[in-house]
C-alpha cells in the first residue's frame, strides 16, 4: 500500500536526516516503526504526509508511493484527500476549540456537510469524548487529548493512519487503553496503521510487522515474534539482558554491537 524507496530528506539544504530509508506498509496491517530519539522516525512520517515543507525539509532522493502513485511532491492537503492521515506527535489539539469543533476540523476533507455519522463513530470508540464534547480542548487531560487527536484522524476516514508516539507522556494504564483502541480500529474498520513508537514492548505486542530505525535508515525488520528473539533488540529496546553473564565482557560486546548498529 505504502512504499518508501531509498528516501533521502534534507533540512535547510544541509542537514541530512533520512539517508536512504526504505520500508513497506501492507494494506490492513499494523506496522511498527521503532527507534530512539533523533533516529528520523518523525521525519519519515512528515515526508510521507507532506508536512516537511513548513519546516524547510525536502525529499531530495528516492520515492514514496501510495497505492501505486508517487506522492513525495504532493501537497499536504491533497495527501490527506488521498487517504493518509498523520496524528502528530504531542497531540497538537486545537486548544481554543471545543472537543467537537476539533473533530469537525479533523473531518475537513469530508465532502458531505453533515458529519454526524462520523461524529457518532468517533464517540463510539471514545465515549469519554462524548461527555466532553462541549469542553474547550485545551483543558482536557493528556489522555483525553490523545483520544481527541486519534478521533480527529478517524473523522477523515483515512485508509492509512500514521500515529506518532501516541504513548508520549501518558500513564501506562492509558497507554494500554489507547493501544487497545488502535487495534480495534484496525480490526473493525480495516484501517492500515503505521505506528511510530519508542515503547518497543507495546508496539511489538500490537504490530503485524516492525521496522527498527537508527540514524536515518532501517537497520532491522521482521515479524514481532522474531524481533523479540533478536539479541540486539532484547538488549537495546526491551531492556532485557542475559542474566548471569560477566559484566565486563558484556560491556565490551555492548559497545561493539552498538557501534555496528550506528555505522
Amino acid at each position, binding site marked *: 500500500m505504502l512504499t518508501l524507496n531509498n528516501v533521502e530528506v534534507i533540512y535547510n539544504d544541509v542537514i541530512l536526516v533520512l539517508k536512504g530509508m526504505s520500508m513497506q506498509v501492507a494494506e490492513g496491517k499494523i506496522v511498527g516503526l521503532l527507534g530512539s530519539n533523533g533516529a528520523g522516525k518523525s521525519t519519515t512520517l512528515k515526508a510521507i*504526509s507532506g*508536512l516537511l515543507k*513548513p519546516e*524547510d525539509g525536502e525529499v531530495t532522493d528516492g520515492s514514496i508511493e501510495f497505492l501505486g502513485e508517487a506522492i513525495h511532491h504532493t*501537497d*499536504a*492537503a491533497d*495527501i*490527506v*484527500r488521498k487517504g493518509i*492521515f*498523520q496524528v*502528530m506527535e504531542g497531540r*497538537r*489539539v*486545537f*486548544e*481554543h*476549540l471545543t472537543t467537537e*469543533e*476539533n473533530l*469537525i*476540523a*479533523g*473531518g*475537513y*476533507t469530508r465532502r458531505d*456537510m453533515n458529519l454526524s455519522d462520523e461524529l457518532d463513530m468517533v464517540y463510539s470508540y471514545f465515549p469519554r469524548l462524548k461527555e466532553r464534547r462541549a469542553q*474547550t480542548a*485545551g*483543558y482536557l487531560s*493528556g489522555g483525553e487529548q490523545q483520544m481527541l487527536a486519534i478521533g*480527529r*484522524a478517524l473523522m*477523515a476516514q483515512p485508509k492509512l493512519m500514521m500515529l506518532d508516539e501516541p504513548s508520549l507522556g501518558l500513564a501506562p494504564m492509558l497507554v494500554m487503553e489507547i493501544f487497545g483502541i488502535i487495534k480495534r480500529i484496525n480490526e473493525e474498520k480495516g484501517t492500515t496503521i503505521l505506528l511510530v513508537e519508542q515503547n518497543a514492548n507495546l508496539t511489538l505486542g500490537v504490530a503485524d510487522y516492525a521496522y527498527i530505525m537508527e540514524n536515518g535508515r532501517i537497520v532491522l525488520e521482521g515479524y514481532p515474534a522474531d524481533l523479540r528473539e533478536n539479541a540486539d533488540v532484547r538488549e537495546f529496546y526491551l531492556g532485557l539482558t542475559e542474566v548471569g553473564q560477566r559484566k565486563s565482557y558484556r560491556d565490551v560486546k555492548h559497545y561493539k554491537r552498538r557501534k555496528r548498529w550506528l555505522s
Partner: protein
Amino acid sequence: MDLFIQLSLTGLTNGAILALAALGFVLIYKSSDVLNFAQGEFLLVGAYVIYAMIAQFGLHWTIGMALTILVSIGVGVTVERLVLRPMIGEPIISVIMVTIGLSSLLKAIVSTIWGNQPKAFPPFIPSQPVRVFGATVGLDRLWAIVIAILMLGLFNFFFRRSKEGIAMRAVADDQQAALSMGISVKKIFAWAWSIAATTAAIGGALVANIVGVGPELAGFGLRVFPVVILGGLDSIPGAIIGGVIIGLLEAYTGGYIGQGLNQVLPFIVLIVILMIRPYGLFGQEIIERV
C-alpha cells in the same frame, strides 16, 4: 435627556462602523497572528470604490454596494496572493512590516486615481431624520447599526457552525496541525483577507455616506487600534463591544465636556482596562494545563 439619546445614537453609529473595520482586523489576527496595519486603507479603498460606483458611474446604491463587496474580495485575494503568500514561513514581524508598506501603497493608489481633494458625496442610503425616543437622528445612522449587528450575527454563525469557520480558528491555533488534516492554510488566509477587506469596505461605505470621501478616512481606520486592543485582539464580540464603547465614549466626552478631549479619553480608558485585563476585555487567554 434628548442630548443624551442623541449622543448615544451618534456614538453607537460610530461604534458600529469602527466595529466593522475592527472585525476584519481581528479576523486576520485570529487566523494568522498578523497585525494588519493596512486595515484603515481597506476602509479608504472601500469608500472610494463606492463613491466611484454611485457618484461617477451613477449606479443604484444596492448594485454599487454589491460591486464594492466584489471588488474588496478581489483586493483581499490579490493582497494575499502577491504580498502575503511569498511571506509564508517568514517571521511574523516581517509580515507586519509588509502590511505597513501595503498601507502606503494603497493610499498612493487611491490618491493617484481620485486625487487628494475631499469629495462631497450625495448620501446614498436614505437619510431622512427619524425620531427615536424624542431625539432626532438620520436614518442612515440607524442603518449602520443594523448592518453591524447583522454582520456580528453572521460572523458568529460562521465561526461556530460552518466547517470553513472552524477550520479558520483551527489554523489560528496550530497551523501545522491544521495542515496535517488537509486544511489548506493558503486558502484560509485568502478567506481571512477577503472578509477583512469586505467588512472594512462596508464600514468605509457607511462612513462615506455620512461624511463624504477624502484621504483622511484612513485615519478613521487608525482608531481601530484602541478598539481591538480594548476588546481583545482575537475576539469578535470584543471588536463589536470595543467599537461601541469607544464610539460612545467619544460621543459623550465630545458632547458633555468638549471637543478635543474626546480624542484622548478613549485611550485613557483603554489604558485603565488593560491594567485590569491585559488580554483586553474578551481576549483569549493562553491556556496552560497544570
